[in-house]
């Protein structure tokens, strides 16, 4: 499943990311890395979501969340 399909209130572990290298590096610097965990706080039906990574909240766009695969 992708992060986009994540359910608010649950924590997931990132399996892999298929993003442009710049975006991937930026996310990695924030602590969103393969094997790292991400907590879904809120989401819109088809759109941006709010997640918690390493203790801080981030709003992530659909283009990013669709490309992040989670461990089942």
């Amino acid at each position, binding site marked *: 499943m992708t992060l986009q399909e994540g359910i608010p209130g649950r924590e997931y572990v990132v399996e892999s990311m298929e993003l442009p290298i*710049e*975006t991937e*590096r*930026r*996310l*990695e*610097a*924030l*602590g969103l*890395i*393969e*094997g*790292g965990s991400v907590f879904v*706080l*809120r*989401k*819109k*039906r088809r*759109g*941006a979501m*709010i997640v918690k*990574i*390493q*203790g*801080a*909240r*981030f*709003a*992530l*766009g*659909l*283009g*990013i969340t*669709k*490309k992040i695969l989670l461990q089942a």
Partner: protein
Amino acid sequence: MVVTMAHQLSIGFVGNPNCGKTTLFNAYTGANLKVANWPGVTVEKKEGRFQFHDQEYKLVDLPGTYSLTSYTMEEQVSRQYILSDDVDVIIDVADASSLERNLYLTLQLIELGKPVILALNMMDIVEKRGMEIDTHRLPEMLGIPVIPVSARRKTGLDILMHAAAHHKDQHEEMPLIHHHTQQTKHAHSHHKEFVMVYSDELEDKIDLVSEALKAAYPEIDNLRWHAIKLLENDREICEKYPLHRPDLLERSYEKDIINQKYAFIREVLQEVLVNKEQKAAITDKADQLFTHRFLGLPIFLVIMALVFFLTFTVGDWLKSYFELGLELFSSGVLSGLKSLQVPDMLISLLVDGIIAGVGGILTFLPNIFILFLALAFLEDSGYMARVAYVMDGIMGKLGLSGRSFIPMVLGFGCSVPAIMASRALENKRDRYKTMLITPFMSCSARLPIYVLFSGLFFEEYAMLAAFSMYVLGMLVAILCAFLMHLIDRKKTQENALLIELPEYKAPSAHTIFIYVWEKVKDYLTKAGTTIFFASIIMWFLLNFGPSGFSGEMSDTFGSLLGKALVPFFTPIGLGFWQIAVALIAGISAKEVVVSSCAVLFGISNITSDAGMAAMAASLTGIGFSALNAYALMTFSLLYVPCAATLATIKKETGSWGWTGLCALFQICVAWVVTFLIYHIGLLLF
């Protein structure tokens, strides 16, 4: 201890976005740089100086950055500065209430090998949340001084500077004390030397790469850092110090390096963080409302409507007192000058030119004040970043990310900082598009135009007419973005919104005071400079003609210029030479449209009842009706942004061609929209 040294000490403030670097910088230097509670407020580095214990300090406030692997403009600015020799000591400002994230940058800074001091900011918030940070254990584990401060309450500031002065020449490392349970098989006991020790596999790699680097580039002084960067496959370092050793650098170890840094941070936190916070309940509750999937957008619109409602009602109420003062002043000056037998021409320059132009603008100060007060509240509370999330869906349909909406909201205040804020957008196409549409957001300088003309022609619907301008500006901006999205072939396919949402906080009175005061000061400065000179030039143009000083306005340079432009303005309902002149003058600053009208129609107190009546009579005399007034408001909203905005666009894009294109685009849009409104209006009424 008093440190005396010949040269000044340069200190760089580095830290994550929104961790309070600028607040700290302001506290030391007495500067009034803008701070707010959303990431990316500071977009360029700022310098300041101050004296402390006979030592001169140069402080540099850098844009916030999450890491030193830089991919955005603000991160590049920070990294270049830190790597340069200009900096003696780095003060790493960390938001103590979000230590996990902030320490990641700290570890990178430590690896860089420059003297680093960790300033634990926002300790007051940490305490309020019932958390405790062991400030004795933390420096033991990091090997650098750790100073708790509160930039807002100005505590710990002297100790921090003292530590900076002291730490500058300290070359031997502070003792590092770690209690690892895991037994390492590694030959070296790295923890004696380094804070951040990686797995045995990585450490072996680092040693080998360091040796290879030393052989190839003996001039490198921090081998370990360069070795790590090569293993991370860092673009800049790989180009600068290529090492053709595929046997060593067979893959990028970046992920391992990041993972192990975060693992180490967790180990540190486990030891130093006592009473880990119970979830920040207030922020989560507030977000349930403000970022609600259905209610989020209506709430945003209601908040903005409230902002403008307050601006117009409370502002107008205060404005009436300003008008009274101006009236007394103007008539006092007039009778005073008359009794002193001052020549008529000079009286005319002073009363009809300067007092009418500048004074007319000053009466709008209360409206401007209220508007910026409201915006300061939105920015400092932490709501601004949520706007990016709420608007992301709509902006996505326009091919922009929700983050583009922050510059647009700031545009309600002033286009200049709004255009500068677009720098935080990573994508260059997004940045240019945002710069193109931001000037359509109705800035505070256009407010006097609406207040004056809607007050003249729309009586009880005046506020509605003025408010409609804000909606119109926003609609035009959105429509333009949409059209650009349709024709843009190389569109960015994906909506890559990425923004940190800070915790909500009660806005700080001091921050808001600085923010509003700076804006009020700008406004007064503008009244005293641009508008002052524009009024004098207008007065000259309207009183002198080819035949010299002329009592008859229709023989003057101004009217000749205006009459030449009438054909351009006639199709949009603005074919009056006076209006054409006022609009041209308005390019210097949009308020000048109003001050010019005051000079044009010889009204010394344009916003007073008597002044308005005289103005209305003059306008009706030349056949200017309510529809013409609405056309004028529309055109003023959309046409060429003011000179200061154009200069900012030039600065941000570095291209006169692009700036010219922007101006031309905006004139075209303004003309077309005004044309439509005027002709639809003619059909309806």
